[in-house]
């Protein structure tokens, strides 16, 4: 039974790398329009978890259901889910041989079969939204890290996804560029996008998250609304983690 309000529903999901048990019994129900922040120490499985949602990693046990489509061996289902989820990576992963505009229109033209001029019009709109329309004809290598990450967000949005996955979007950025990327993400959150963010930006979590999830050792340890999560963490591992990242 899939709740029609669920964007992502993960039940009893396990993930192994060879014999290494990377994710253990994950249960997660994310409603449409919900903003989730996942945090946890390095190696806790948080990136693996969101990479399982669009099959960049394959899970072995349990089920993942995205917008009513079951993520299984069926290639059509995988394609369907990838069309509906946009992803932003830590290292941007832009296509360096294409201009910013070409990066943005590639997938809409190839996957959604959109006509070029329509794809370009939409792409320019989204580049305006991330505040870099003037860079459309430049190549990724000619932009700063913050600009590249904003292009990456625009590129993902060009596919008009229902869910956005952010995998540590600000971890590779210089400190002064972090806020320009977070601003774009906050704007996106206010528009009602379903967002799942792996990030250590606790200010961002407090400001926009509906729920903060803490992971450690491949398990979900604790999940709570941000106020409760930061001010009154229940689990001692959560307390230790928050003590480390907020303590200085």
């Amino acid at each position, binding site marked *: 039974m899939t709740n029609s309000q669920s964007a992502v529903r993960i039940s009893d999901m396990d993930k192994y790398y060879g014999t290494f048990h990377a994710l253990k019994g994950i249960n997660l129900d994310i409603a449409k329009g919900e903003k989730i922040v996942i945090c946890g120490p390095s190696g806790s499985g948080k990136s693996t978890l969101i990479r399982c949602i669009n099959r960049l990693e394959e899970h072995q046990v349990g089920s993942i259901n995205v917008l009513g489509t079951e993520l299984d061996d069926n290639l059509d289902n995988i394609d369907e889910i990838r069309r509906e989820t946009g992803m932003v990576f830590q290292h941007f992963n832009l296509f*360096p041989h294409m201009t910013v505009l070409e990066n943005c229109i590639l997938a809409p033209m190839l996957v959604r079969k959109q006509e070029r001029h329509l794809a370009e019009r939409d792409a320019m709109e989204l580049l305006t939204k991330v505040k870099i329309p003037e860079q459309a004809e430049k190549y990724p290598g000619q932009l700063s890290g913050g600009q590249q990450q904003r292009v990456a967000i625009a590129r993902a949005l060009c596919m008009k996804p229902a869910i956005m996955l952010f995998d540590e979007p600000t971890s590779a950025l210089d400190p002064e560029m972090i806020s320009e990327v977070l601003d774009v993400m906050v704007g996106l959150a206010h528009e009602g996008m379903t967002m799942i963010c792996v990030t250590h930006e606790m200010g961002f979590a407090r400001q926009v998250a509906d729920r903060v999830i803490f992971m450690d050792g491949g398990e979900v340890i604790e999940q709570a609304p941000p106020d409760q999560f930061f001010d009154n963490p229940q689990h001692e591992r959560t307390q230790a983690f928050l003590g480390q990242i907020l303590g200085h």
Partner: protein
Amino acid sequence: MLALLKQKSYRDRTLQTLFVGGLAVMLVIFVMTARTNLEAQGMTSGFDFLERATGWGVSFSLIDFSTSDSYLKVIWVGLLNSLFLGVISMSFATIIGIAIGIMRVSGNKMAELIGTIYVEVFRNLPLLLQAFFWYAILTTLPKPRDAYDIGGIAFLSGRGVYLPGLNVSGLSVFLSAIGLVIAFAVWLNLTTSRRFAKMMPKEKTARARSIWLAWGFAACVVMAMGRIPDTPLLNLPYLKGLNFREGIRVSPELLTCIVAISIYGGAYIGEIVRAGFNAVSNGQKEAGFALGLTPWQIFTRIRLPLAIRAVMPMLINQYVWLFKATTIGIAVGFVDFFMVISTSINQSGQTLELIAILMGGFLCINYTMAFALNRVNDAIKLKGTQARG
């Protein structure tokens, strides 16, 4: 004075002057010694012999050549033959190399195994040995009367391979080929030059289309004008008596050179292409998957273009190397540049001059090729800094 020596700019200039001056003095001494020695042996130097008739013929020529033509012309024949062989075998080597490179990174165990065996066998055997091997095979094919028939239009025999051709003059084919290179250069300029960056993509596509249409039209016109009168357009080989008539005969010598260089070069280019694919970070592939692109789209739009860009400098190096490999023609008796020069030396005795022409010829061709390919590399290479994955 001592203070002057400590000045970097002064010291650099002095060293440069001494170095260039030293080279010039050595060159003058070499030329003078050589001239004295040659005169002492009663040998004439100079390039007058180039006007003399050769008195010997060649077995393969792209232009008309008879025994009464000059040395200059025979050298030209050899040079054209080498270029002809080089262009054909480098094209095949590229196709084979890309295929082998893709097989080795395909993730398909069987394809990887075949690719690995291919590379290890053909890269590790000397080119000369491979040339002898292919020559032995090609010359022991059956006689024309028992030739292998490929669909009635092409035939494999010990006297050569017979292919269908067009009844047009060689000049018109040559002009069309030159036109193709020009069209490609213009197209590359249109798609990569900064000057056209602001152009609407629609107009760009239209212009690109008109470039290729113009070339196609021009090629058809040139070919039509070059039609050999009173013959059908298509020229099919057929067996008459003991041998084939008509069609294009590819001699076992030429075919040996093409096969050997293509297969040998393919192994090297395959390794270069593999290195290129390995240099493309996994992140770009993942971004493609996350956007919903298919593996084939990711391969053609992202991985292949990035791999080619990553290995372009190595490929240029390989092409220069492969062109020099055309000199194996002399081992099986194909009339290439090297063989023409070598025969001319035997016949005319003008060793130094002919060796100079040979070296100058290879230098010019390889430098021109490297220069042109470097321009291509500049045009397509990734813009900006690529510090981040």
